[in-house]
């Protein structure tokens, strides 16, 4: 009878899994979760683990370059290190960190109970995880990708790069692209359709606005790299000629398609962080954001213009003076809306009642470092100047100034700001300040020497350099700086561990916040809002707490700021929440199987992957759930 009882026990196990998933306890409740807050936490924790991986890769690179004729790693390993470092930090750290914030905050900021498509949201997370794992699985299959994060063809074509690394890279990015696209569709629909009554577009918090702009960038930029990656894989796997010079293919096609995606991508990385900064500054200055419409419209302007600047990555490829001049002008122009934002942030601080807590420190650090990054970027927009800087360490210094000095500082501002909302506890302030100062010093010690090295002529992507070039001291300084950064990250991790256990209780509104997420308990209940709020103003929660007194100073409303309390049991039972589902995970699991089948040309594996994906899709569609 064993054959009969077997399926019954499987069904029984599945039933228990579903039960557990519905109770919000245990591992299965995380695996089948469709709650945007839990998905946000999964995104954040996973991205942080990838940050450690990418960070260790960076430390190895710096160790190798610390002294001339370094021999810490071989040239082959060095190529894999810088490729994986760049790919990891962009696709597996900064983008998913932004996704973590989208997930945690957008529904709360617009007064919704979840996103428009909760299961699609879970699918985005699992697909991101699968893409990251597939990318790293390359190490088991004979070596990580080694063509740089930009993967220039024909360098990445089969005759010049016959290992499987590039295939894993292309397939991994393709899967990560599916994840980003699904998430972007979801958040556009959520922001446009799920706003609480009264939450008109121009009452939305700026972070939500920047999420919207970023999501549009993602859905319009990712298809270009998807096509480029398909073309590369058709060349590598099936002998097509897209980038094959022997049959007349041109390497410029890859560069155009890659950078049509690649430059908007830069803004995909930075716009969410600009949103975070626009939330932190007003709260810690106790002032509304200066020039809200300007900050919003400059964000939209950046998003539009980012599609018209890609060829500034290609000045030295011989596009000709007219194309170079046109793209030079558009690149200079995009600095204007960016500058508008900087001045509005400074004006927000001006005359404010400033409390210099960790979130504000990181936000101000972001402004200072990002301005340096932006200005060095303007020097690249000048064609003759760029001819000198192309492929030098100055470029490396510039984009780290933007993506680390900008994005990572801003992400930490957001972590310190919203950590109490989602854990119920404040991070330790002293450790936070130590983290900030160590990171600021370490950051500048690492990347300012790279600016000088670049101007002295040190090229990018070299695994070592001879003695006597005058580069030794600067390289050693940069390496020391990178270890100071690593130390600061350790301080942050210690802070999280300590504060999760013994941190100060945060309460609903520890920072005297302005937006709706601070009006509900910390951590928020699964249904977010017991009653859907009715919004009457921009910074609605602030206006519930304060009225304007003499001289424009805020005066607390008597009995104002009535925070939502946890409701009675029977109250909560009436709130309908989307049911947990494991079909998103099944769909995601099929993708790497499908991709591996193509990488190893094992069509049985392709078919197996397709069956898993189709099973997931049909299970999803036929599941008796009420929402996407």
């Amino acid at each position, binding site marked *: 009878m064993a054959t009969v009882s077997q399926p019954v026990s499987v069904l029984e196990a599945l039933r228990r899994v579903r039960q557990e998933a519905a109770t919000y306890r245990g591992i299965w409740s995380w695996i089948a979760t469709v709650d945007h807050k839990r998905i946000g936490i999964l995104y954040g924790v996973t991205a942080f683990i990838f940050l450690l991986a990418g960070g260790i890769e960076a430390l190895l690179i710096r160790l190798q370059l610390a002294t001339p004729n370094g021999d810490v790693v071989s040239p082959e390993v060095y190529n894999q290190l810088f490729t994986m470092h760049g790919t990891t930090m962009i696709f597996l750290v900064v983008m998913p960190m932004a996704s973590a914030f989208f997930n945690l905050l957008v529904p709360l900021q617009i007064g919704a109970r979840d996103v428009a498509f909760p299961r699609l949201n879970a699918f985005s997370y699992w697909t991101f995880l699968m893409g990251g794992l597939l990318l790293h699985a390359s190490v088991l299959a004979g070596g990580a990708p080694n063509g740089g994060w930009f993967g220039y063809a024909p360098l990445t074509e089969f005759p010049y790069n016959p290992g499987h690394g590039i295939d894993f890279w292309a397939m991994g990015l393709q899967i990560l692209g599916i994840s980003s696209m699904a998430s972007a569709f979801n958040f*556009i629909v959520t922001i446009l*359709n799920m*706003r609480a009554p009264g939450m008109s577009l121009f009452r939305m918090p700026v972070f939500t606005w920047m999420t919207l702009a970023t999501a549009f960038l993602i859905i*319009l930029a990712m298809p270009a790299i998807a*096509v*480029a990656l398909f073309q590369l894989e058709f060349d590598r796997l*099936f002998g*097509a000629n897209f980038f094959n010079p022997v049959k*007349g293919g041109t390497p410029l096609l890859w560069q155009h398609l890659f950078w049509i995606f690649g430059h908007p991508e830069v803004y995909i990385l930075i716009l969410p962080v600009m949103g975070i900064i626009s939330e932190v500054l007003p709260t810690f200055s106790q002032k509304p954001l200066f020039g809200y419409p300007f900050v919003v419209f400059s964000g939209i302007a950046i998003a539009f213009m980012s599609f018209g600047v890609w060829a500034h990555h290609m000045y030295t490829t011989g596009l000709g003076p007219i194309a170079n001049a046109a793209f030079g002008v558009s690149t200079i122009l995009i600095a204007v809306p960016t500058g508008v934002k900087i001045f509005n942030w400074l004006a927000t601080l001006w005359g404010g009642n400033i409390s210099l807590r960790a979130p504000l420190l990181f936000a101000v650090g972001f402004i200072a470092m990002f301005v340096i990054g932006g200005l060095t970027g303007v020097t690249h927009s000048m064609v003759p100047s760029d001819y000198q800087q192309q492929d030098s360490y100055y470029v490396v210094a510039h984009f780290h100034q933007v993506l680390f000095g900008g994005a990572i500082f801003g992400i930490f501002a957001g972590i310190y700001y919203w950590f109490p909302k989602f854990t119920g506890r404040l991070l330790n302030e002293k450790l936070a300040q130590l983290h900030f100062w160590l990171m600021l010093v370490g950051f500048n010690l690492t990347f300012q020497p790279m600016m000088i090295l670049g101007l002295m002529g040190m090229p990018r992507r070299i695994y070592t350099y001879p003695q006597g070039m005058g580069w030794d001291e600067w390289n050693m300084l940069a390496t020391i700086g990178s270890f100071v950064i690593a130390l600061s990250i350790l301080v942050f991790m210690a802070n999280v561990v300590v504060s999760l256990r013994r941190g100060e209780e945060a309460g609903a509104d520890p920072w005297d916040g302005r937006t709706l997420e601070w009006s509900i308990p910390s951590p928020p209940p699964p249904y977010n809002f017991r009653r859907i709020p009715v919004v009457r103003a921009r910074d609605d929660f602030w206006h519930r707490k304060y009225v304007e007194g003499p001289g424009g100073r805020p005066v607390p409303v008597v009995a104002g700021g009535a925070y939502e309390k946890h409701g009675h049991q029977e109250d909560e039972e009436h709130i309908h929440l989307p049911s947990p589902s494991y079909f998103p995970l099944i769909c995601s699991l099929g993708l790497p199987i499908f991709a591996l089948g193509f990488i190893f040309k094992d069509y049985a594996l392709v078919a197996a992957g397709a069956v898993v994906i189709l099973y997931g899709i049909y299970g999803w569609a036929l599941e008796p759930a009420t929402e996407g």
Partner: protein
Amino acid sequence: MTHQPRLAETTLETATGLDNRKLMMWLFLASEAVFFGSLIATYLLYRGQSLQGPYPEDVFNIPFTSVSSFILLMSSATMALAVGAAQRGQLHQMRTWLLVTPLLGISFLAGQAFEFTEFYRQGLTLSSNLFGTTFYVLTGFHGAHVSVGVLILLSLWAAAMLGKIGRHNAINVEIAGLYWHFVDIVWIVIFTLVYLLEPL
């Protein structure tokens, strides 16, 4: 506590008044436009750049492809009939058109399969030249999209036969229709640029 009307719990409650899934389909089609835009741009970039044959004029059979294009365009008409019937609640007609549309799609795919085999026999492969590379990948991706559409429509037809599609959820048919029309429009662009304008 008063009970809200049933309708307010579904589509009309969104802030824009648009159904969530319909809005998402429009956004998806926007990204698909960039996807096919990039593929078509690649085809045009390499147009006339092949270093060796077979060239387009050696293999193209315009009358044949015109017929299969006509079949695909007619499937847009039957798709529109299916959507209309679903919205009016004419279930019998809806089922008919939900079957005819994917059958027309399959006919188009059969034409494409015939065309690919014929070109292959005349020596045009994915690797023979830039034309082979760009032609097969561009039209192949379009064919893959038609196949997905066929799968969606047949699934809808099966659901309709089980009585699960009616006036109340006609939006399902409408959204599938948006996708189907988009794929047809892409074919109009491909047919014009790749086949009809080839002599230019």
